[in-house]
């Protein structure tokens, strides 16, 4: 039995120990070490990196990232929930094809899909050319390199990740419950608010996490659509590593990012646990 375990689990777990656990531990350590004079890392303990992250200059980047990710998540939820709801209530024969159709883009390159929006939004792009041809504008509009473009790109990139878990939670829902609510006099809105929405909360929470987490640490979308060198925390980390060559500070920013996400996942687990307890009490 032990030999079997070793053969089956050993290779993958050893691989992850070396190429996942050790590298992440290294980032953890670097975050509290000092930057060398010519880049690199000097093994002297310091809390300077943490203090620096609280500097208004960097704090603003963190808060901006949180805001952009939150807005993208909210918009994806508002767009994604009705779509997921309809897909889940389609005739079974239609359900899987339509679901695959909505999720398929997620499996293609984010780099390419983000590029598509440059084609549409840039000064020589589809929208500007179209508006100019229609005689509606003289000067091209600046549609790229702003917060809106980043949020648009993130919603576009991760909408499938919102739809999928919400779809799953609605599909699992017993249709009798809705019927019962309607029979007892609940209107469609009331049935939705009192029955469907609370019961699909786990799906909503999962979808929000799936969109918020990759949005918060995103690099490609703010890099290509947001213009600025360090507009979001992902770009800031990248520039600390590849340009400023301040690895300890980049590591500290990464640590903060992981911390925020960890807190979020804990909150989700807590929320689901509470809901389960309430369901048991009821």
């Amino acid at each position: 039995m032990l030999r079997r375990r070793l053969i089956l689990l050993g290779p993958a777990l050893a691989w992850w120990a070396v190429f996942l656990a050790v590298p992440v531990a290294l980032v953890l350590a670097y975050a509290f070490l000092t930057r060398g004079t010519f880049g690199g890392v000097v093994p002297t303990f310091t809390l300077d990196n943490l203090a620096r992250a609280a500097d208004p200059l960097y704090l603003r980047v963190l808060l901006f990232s949180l805001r952009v990710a939150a807005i993208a998540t909210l918009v994806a939820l508002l767009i994604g929930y009705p779509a997921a709801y309809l897909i889940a209530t389609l005739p079974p024969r239609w359900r899987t094809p339509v679901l695959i159709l909505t999720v398929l883009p997620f499996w293609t390159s984010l780099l390419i899909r983000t590029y598509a929006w440059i084609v549409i939004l840039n000064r020589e792009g589809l929208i500007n050319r179209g508006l100019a041809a229609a005689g509606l504008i003289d000067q091209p509009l600046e549609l790229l390199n702003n917060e809106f473009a980043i949020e648009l790109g993130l919603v576009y990139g991760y909408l499938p990740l919102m739809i999928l878990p919400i779809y799953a939670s609605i599909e699992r829902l017993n249709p009798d419950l809705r019927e019962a609510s309607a029979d007892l006099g609940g209107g469609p809105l009331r049935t939705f608010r009192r029955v469907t929405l609370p019961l699909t909360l786990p799906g909503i929470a999962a979808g929000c996490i799936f969109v918020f987490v990759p949005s918060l640490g995103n690099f490609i979308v703010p890099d290509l659509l947001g213009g600025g060198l360090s507009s979001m925390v992902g770009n800031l980390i990248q520039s600390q590593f590849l340009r400023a060559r301040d690895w300890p500070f980049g590591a500290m920013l990464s640590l903060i990012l992981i911390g925020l996400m960890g807190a979020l996942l804990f909150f989700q687990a807590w929320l689901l646990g509470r809901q389960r307890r309430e369901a048991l009490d009821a």
Partner: protein
Amino acid sequence: MPDRPSRSIRSWGRWVLGLELALVLAFLYLPIAVVAALSFNASGLPTAWTGFSLEWYAAVARNEALLGAFGNTLIVGAATTIIATILGTLLALGLERAVRSTFLDTFVYVPMIIPDIVFAIALLSFYNLVFTSLLGLQLGLWTVILSHVTFGIAFVAVVVRTRLRHFDRSIEEASLDLGANELRTFRNVTLPAIAPGVVAGALIAFTMSFDEFIIAFFTKGTSETFPTQVYSMIRFGVTPEVNAIATVVLGLSITLVLVSQRLRGSLE
């Protein structure tokens, strides 16, 4: 029953939802369609359609740097797929058959949810310390392969596990009862039964490696993979050539994913 929603309100609601879903699908596919359409436009510009042309595809086929990068990405993808499929399949078997551990069940998802920028700098720090400083080696395609295998294992393991759960274990027991040893049972009974799941997992691992940009960007050394090469072209600006590349890449990954879906679907 005045409070009971009338049929007309319900069907009205379905219409609104239907319209919303149509808009969502348009939102997801129109940008891709625009790029694909432009890649066949002779002028290459979004201004006007000046006729169907394959000239931008021909230009891509002549771009040496791009072809070299494409070859590199195939090498990385193939190596990643082979290693990740073997390790991921063994892991799936182990998790399903040899241990019962909530910790490990959760841990499998860590490589999938860790932010890729954090993963990228973690691997760069590690490679830099161990390979460059200690061993004096240069980063290159091989370090990209090591990186991609790390998350590839997770995807393969998750896909193969679903297949294993739907698998009737009694045929394995029958094989053992009939005197086949464990290895033979695995080769002749278990493996053929889970093969579609293994192939589906392998295709997903390949697709993920083929499209992966950030981790490759940090760990590639002076080599270029296809996404990092395309990234520098995109940074340079919108060109008809990039439109053609984008169309090929999207077509390729969509095909791979649909094949993978089909294989996975064949178990239900």
